[in-house]
């Protein structure tokens, strides 16, 4: 745009033109520019969009459609409008499953996010910080099933937590961690924290390293102590990376499925079910595809809206730099 305007200015010798001519000139320039930009630009965007739509389009449309039918098992269902949604709202499991989602969300904020920030902050500039970060990142390379199996053995009634408690004389705190609510959900959050914190440490490290040194030095000269420094300087500077971390952590905690399914299958007696598990259970275990689809739609709406509101605040804009 700048290029064309400059060229025009030179051509026309910067003499003032009648306004309507100038307006038409601007319009033509804009159209030419758009045509030039349009063709090539979309060529860059299209392959990724196709790749994504291949995976997204049919499943989302089909799920939306299924949620309006009573499809079950191997049969063909018929259209029943919003009946599934009405049933869903009255389903007694909904309260439990949503409270578990809330617990997972709060737990994820409290543990991996908070811990990640603390570790990143403390490790900053320390000798051997790379080694620390590596250790915290290591669980990330293990598959979800491996993580869940290891922690299942740790939290089992005859498992290592109880053995440890007995070993240090705290037998009275022994219990069946996975069989009682809310301990089972909390145990699984601990497992998820173990595997997910490393990534958050890295992200916050990046955010912290991006803070300009002059800002920090100036604040130190002004006499800011540790806490003041953190609150007035560090924290605001982390705004953008915070949005990324919280956005992705939120989206993941809302969709929690893998760890819960392997460790407790949402049990016992459906006490540790999250929305993702309920959806899987209805669709895959009970083969109630219509009803399961309505839960999927609910989950999708939840995740998309939460992500939108949390990312919107901190995402860098293309035009602001």
């Amino acid at each position, binding site marked *: 745009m700048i290029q064309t305007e400059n060229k025009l200015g030179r051509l026309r010798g910067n003499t003032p033109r009648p306004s309507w001519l100038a307006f038409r000139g601007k319009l033509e320039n804009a159209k030419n520019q758009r045509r030039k930009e349009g063709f090539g630009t979309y060529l860059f965007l299209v392959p990724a969009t196709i790749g994504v739509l291949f995976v997204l389009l049919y499943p989302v449309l089909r799920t939306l459609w299924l949620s309006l039918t009573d499809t079950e098992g191997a049969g063909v269902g018929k259209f029943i409008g919003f009946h599934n949604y009405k049933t869903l709202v009255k389903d007694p499991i909904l309260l439990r499953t949503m409270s578990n989602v809330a617990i997972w969300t709060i737990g994820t904020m409290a543990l991996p996010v908070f811990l990640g920030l603390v570790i990143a902050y403390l490790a900053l500039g320390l000798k051997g910080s790379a080694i620390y970060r590596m250790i915290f990142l290591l669980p990330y390379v293990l598959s979800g099933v491996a993580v869940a*199996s290891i922690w299942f053995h740790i939290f089992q009634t005859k498992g290592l937590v109880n053995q440890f408690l007995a070993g240090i004389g705290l037998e009275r705190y022994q219990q069946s961690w996975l069989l009682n609510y809310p301990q089972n959900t909390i145990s699984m959050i601990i497992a998820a924290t173990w595997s997910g914190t490393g990534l958050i440490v890295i992200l916050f490290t990046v955010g912290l390293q991006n803070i300009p040194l002059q800002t920090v030095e100036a604040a130190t000269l002004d006499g800011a102590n540790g806490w003041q420094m953190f609150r007035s300087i560090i924290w605001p500077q982390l705004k953008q990376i915070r949005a990324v971390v919280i956005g992705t952590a939120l989206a993941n905690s809302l969709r929690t499925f893998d760890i819960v399914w392997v460790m407790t299958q949402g049990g016992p007696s459906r006490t540790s079910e999250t929305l993702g598990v309920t959806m899987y259970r209805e669709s895959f275990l009970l083969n109630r595809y219509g009803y399961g689809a309505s839960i999927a739609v609910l989950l999708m709406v939840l995740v998309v809206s939460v992500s939108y509101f949390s990312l919107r605040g901190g995402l860098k804009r293309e035009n602001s730099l």
Partner: protein
Amino acid sequence: MRTAKVGRHIFLMVFAAMWLAPIYLLIINAMANTKNYMDNFDWAYKGFQPLPNFKAAWAAAELTPGLISNAIYGIVGAGVSVALAALSAYAVVALNPKAKQVWFWLIYGVNLVPIPMLLLPLFDIFARTGLYDTRAGLLLVYIGIAIPFAFFLSRNHMLSISREIVEAAQIDGASKLLVFTRIFLPLSWPALGAAFLFQFTWIWNDLLFGLTLTVSSNVRPLMATLSTLVGQYSTLKLPIVLCVTLIASLPTAFLYIVGQRLFITGLKAGS
């Protein structure tokens, strides 16, 4: 100042030790002597026989075709998705398309869909089009799923590339493609590298798509094959299963140790 540093080290060392504890458990039980091992997963030293356990694990899990499959899925899947993501991130950042927000949410949005929701409809399409139980089919899915987060990371990094450099190149008459390959690509390769590592790991560890969309042992990814080894009818002892898990995790662990530096620079906003 010195005491503060020591304090930080102590805090970090305690947490690091806690973090390593489960890995210690994994290793000590994977190397255990299988003869007397009977469902006793715990801290105790139970013998150390890595070689026989590795051999048994390799055979039981058909690791050679499994590792080859995973390598193909990981390298091609992550590679292609990062390439496509980079192209679209460049477009959104530098080429000023209309409705930028729409493109962003469209491409990033897949990341927000719960995966179990995708499984059955994809299986449905795959069965009807003959993509079921094929490497190509699974690759297409991996690429599609991997693009969003790679796009997110690339875009984030590319936004920090100075506008002046881009405009200078455009004034010099450089085409869009040239600006991409000569300016954006070299400057963003740490971010792209980081994106590749993340998505490679995700694809490498995938279980659900592998289970749903494939069944033959030479098409099935490693984690899906691994899950056929456990269960109520299984005759394999736990150390062997844990060994398979260890072997399966070595490539990704190696990549991360080697590429750790890449993360920090790759995710940096300023360059």
